[in-house]
C-alpha cells in the first residue's frame, strides 16, 4: 500500500509519518510536495502535523489552499482515505473535509504530554484493530486543539458514531481533568460521515514503539492496512 504524506511549508511531522509507514508498517511512503498536483498513486493520504505556513492567521487556514490540496480533496471525494493528524486535522477542518474547527487550547498554553484517549468507535477503517472503549496512551503536542462545532453538528457527530476518540482521565472517564485542551465533549478525533476522512489531535505516529513510551498507535495504522485495499 502506498501512503502519500503531504509536506507543506512548515510541516514537521511529515518525517515521523514517513518513518512510521516505512519502518513500522513496512509499507511504501512518498512525500507529496505542496506545490505539486500529483498524488503519485497514493492509496492513503496523510496530512501530517506541524505548523504549515507558521500557523499564521489560523492553524491550517493557509495550507488548505495549497495546490496539492485540490488533489487531496478530490481523492477524499472519491472515497479515498485521508488522515489528518494534529495540524493535518486543522487543515482538514479548514478545507471542509471534516466539520468543526480547532481553537486555541482553553489553557492558552501549548500542551505536550502523553494523554489517554478512548476508542469510541472501533468500526471505522482507522480503528478496526482496537476494541470499542479501549484506552490508549498517545502523545499530544499542540497549541490549537480545542475542537468546536455548533450544537447540531456536535449532536450529529455523537449520534452517528463520528466521534472516534475521546480524551479521558486516569479512570477512563471523559472528564474535564482528562481534557488537555478544552475540546467540546472531550473530542480528540472525528471521522466524516462517509468514513474515509479521519482527523485527530493526538499523534499515533509517535506511539509506535514502547521504547518511546507507548506503542498504542500501532492499531491505528494496522487498521488501515486491514481495511483499505491497495
Amino acid at each position: 500500500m502506498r501512503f502519500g504524506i503531504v509536506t507543506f511549508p512548515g510541516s514537521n511531522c511529515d518525517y515521523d509519518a514517513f518513518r512510521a509507514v516505512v519502518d513500522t508498517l513496512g509499507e511504501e511512503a512518498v512525500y507529496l510536495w505542496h506545490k505539486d498536483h500529483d498524488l503519485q498513486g497514493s492509496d492513503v493520504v496523510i496530512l501530517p502535523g506541524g505548523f504549515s505556513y507558521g500557523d499564521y492567521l489560523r492553524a491550517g487556514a493557509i495550507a488548505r489552499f495549497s495546490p496539492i490540496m485540490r488533489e487531496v480533496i478530490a481523492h477524499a471525494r472519491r472515497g479515498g482515505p485521508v488522515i489528518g493528524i494534529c495540524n493535518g486535522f486543522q487543515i482538514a477542518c479548514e478545507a471542509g473535509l471534516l466539520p468543526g474547527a480547532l481553537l486555541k487550547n482553553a489553557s492558552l498554553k501549548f500542551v505536550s504530554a502523553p494523554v489517554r484517549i478512548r476508542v469510541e468507535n472501533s468500526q471505522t477503517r482507522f480503528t478496526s484493530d482496537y476494541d470499542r472503549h479501549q484506552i490508549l496512551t498517545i502523545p499530544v503536542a499542540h497549541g490549537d486543539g480545542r475542537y468546536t462545532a455548533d450544537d447540531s453538528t456536535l449532536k450529529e457527530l455523537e449520534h452517528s458514531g463520528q466521534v472516534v476518540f475521546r480524551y479521558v482521565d486516569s479512570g477512563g472517564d471523559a472528564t474535564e481533568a482528562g481534557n488537555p485542551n478544552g475540546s467540546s465533549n472531550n473530542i480528540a478525533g472525528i471521522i466524516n460521515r462517509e468514513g474515509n476522512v479521519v482527523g485527530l489531535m493526538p499523534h499515533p505516529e509517535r506511539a509506535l514503539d514502547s521504547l518511546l513510551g507507548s506503542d498504542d498507535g500501532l492499531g491505528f495504522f494496522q487498521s488501515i492496512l486491514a481495511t483499505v485495499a491497495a
Partner: protein
Amino acid sequence: MTAFRVSVHITPRRGILDPQGKAVEGALHSLGFAGVKEVHVGRYIVVETDAETQNAAEAEVKAMCERLLANPVIEDFEIESVAAR
C-alpha cells in the same frame, strides 16, 4: 486604480468560549482595573489593496474574509473602514 486601506475586525462568534478574553479580563482585575466587566479579543487585519472604487475595494475584502481571513464556523467578520490612501 486607487489604493485603498480596508480594515477588518474578526471576532469569535457569540457562544464560543473566549478564554483569551477571560484571561485578559482576569489579568486586568488583578492589576487593579476593577471597573472592567468584560473583554473580548479578536483579530484586526488591515489590507492595502488597489481597486477601481471604494465599493469594489470593500467587495474585494469581503471576498477575502469569506475565503480566507475568517472561518465562519468560529468567527464573525466586519469591515470596519475603507479609505482611499
